[in-house]
């Protein structure tokens, strides 16, 4: 499969601190790469350089083989989603989702039709007229998703997008994310510090530590990386299951790694 995104020898320093050190990365079309990393590992800086919001000291970012060095963020076709939904506070949910179409001067009939369709897909139709402060955390994050998807980006960058949500909403949003990204066939870089989330959402896996990125050929190789401590996690849960006789642990649960399309919208 030919690569959509190629990051070559990317480095960035802030003062004396090397935030990114010769980062190499490739991502094919329609793939999701989970990048696992702790706070301060350089995840956000990497995404911002790819989006064109930060500059790098050395290295290059290529999209479909084209160097993006002199391409401004608005012309890259790359949308960056933050941990916070960052909806525009002066616009309704409808106008937030329609924002990307409005700035492209899309005709009003098409804006109306596509925005309604997107709101329907994300279960937000009844909230179309509400202002951002009237929405719940999950609804705001869905609106932010819709706002990004409606412009049909070539690449979506997600910077711990579910980090601020409660456990239940987070699980529902992970399911929604997997469904929507698959349906829209968008390539994504998904940054998280949560191992389970990285495994659930990704097709490809990488680990970023102290500015150095390691890509893995498959999930098994990713899980054997000692720094991510997957073995400790697995040992904890299997030990707990062995030690307790609580019946819920004996109920067979669906395999979280089998990604079925039956996810519910939160």
């Amino acid at each position, binding site marked *: 499969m030919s690569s959509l995104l190629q990051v070559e020898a990317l480095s960035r320093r802030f003062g004396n601190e090397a935030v990114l050190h010769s980062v190499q990365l490739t991502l094919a079309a329609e793939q999701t790469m989970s990048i696992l990393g702790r706070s301060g590992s350089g995840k956000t800086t990497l995404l911002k350089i790819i*989006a064109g919001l930060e500059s790098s000291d050395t290295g290059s970012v290529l999209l479909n083989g084209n160097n993006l060095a002199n391409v401004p*963020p*608005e012309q890259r076709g790359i949308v960056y*989603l933050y941990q916070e939904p960052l909806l*525009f506070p002066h*616009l309704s949910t409808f106008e937030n989702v329609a924002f990307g179409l409005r*700035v492209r001067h899309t005709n009003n009939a098409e804006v109306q039709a596509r925005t309604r369709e997107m709101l329907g897909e994300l279960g937000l139709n009844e909230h179309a007229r509400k202002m951002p402060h009237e929405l719940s955390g999950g609804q705001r994050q869905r609106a932010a998703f819709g706002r990004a998807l409606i*412009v049909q980006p070539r690449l979506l960058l997600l910077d711990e997008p579910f980090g601020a949500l409660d456990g239940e909403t987070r699980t529902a949003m992970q399911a929604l994310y997997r469904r929507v990204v698959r349906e829209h066939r968008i390539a994504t870089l998904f940054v998280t510090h949560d191992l389970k989330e990285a495994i659930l959402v990704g097709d490809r896996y990488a680990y970023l530590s102290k500015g150095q990125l390691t890509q893995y050929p498959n999930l098994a190789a990713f899980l054997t990386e000692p720094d991510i401590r997957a073995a400790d996690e697995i040992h904890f849960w299997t030990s707990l299951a062995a030690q307790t006789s609580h019946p819920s642990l004996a109920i067979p649960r669906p395999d979280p790694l089998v990604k079925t399309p039956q996810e519910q919208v939160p």
Partner: protein
Amino acid sequence: MSTAQRIALHGPWRRQLVKLGGCIVAVSALLPLIYLALLTVADRWQAPRLLPEGLRLDRLSNVLSSSTGLLESLLLSLFIGGLVAAGSTALGFVTSRQLAYTRRLRLWLLLAYLPFAISPVVLATCLLFVFIKVHLSGTLLGVILAQIMLAYGFATILLLGLWNPHKQGLEQVARTLGANPRQVWMQVLIPASLPLLRVCFFQTFLISWAQYGLTALIGSGKVRTLPLRVFDYAMEADPAYAAVAGLLLIVPPLALLWIERRIVFKVV
């Protein structure tokens, strides 16, 4: 005695005291305004009489005539105030954004505070020499520029609070969604900052509106705004016309305050 009993015992007294305090504050605030309004229509009001012997409305109607120059000064003050407020708010908005993301914020802030630290009259004295050299002394443009220099620093400091990681995030999201820098300003930053921009416009208008020393020095007495007119009447020992001018001086800010309370504070 329990806390609940103490509150129950002192509750009614406390409420009465609060009411009394509120009345005293209200009367203290309104009495000068009532006195000012009465003075504009008073006919033969000599000490020790509490109220005037008669009323006359001709001074108010004279405002419209050109002989007093009050209407001219009112319009001039409105014009200067509007321009100074619009100019300093716009400049402060752009500058505060630049300052917020600069590394030498403290140094720039010090410069912004300087006009207040040295007082407007001292600022005018410093500017006067330069303004005379460039032929701006005694001109309307000179007064407007000098007042903008004063209000600009205030607007910059006030609007600095707008810029935080959240606002920067909005700006960056808008860029990656396809908005060019102009669209980011027009469709995101300005509308999202509108409540504080309105407050800033109102405050800088008031700075200009009440400005006396700076206007008198830079305008060299040729730019006769309403505060200068009030001072002239007071100096001429004409308290009735000074009251008329004073009344004109407080009506527009009160109207703006009313608008601000109804519109601005609803959305801030």
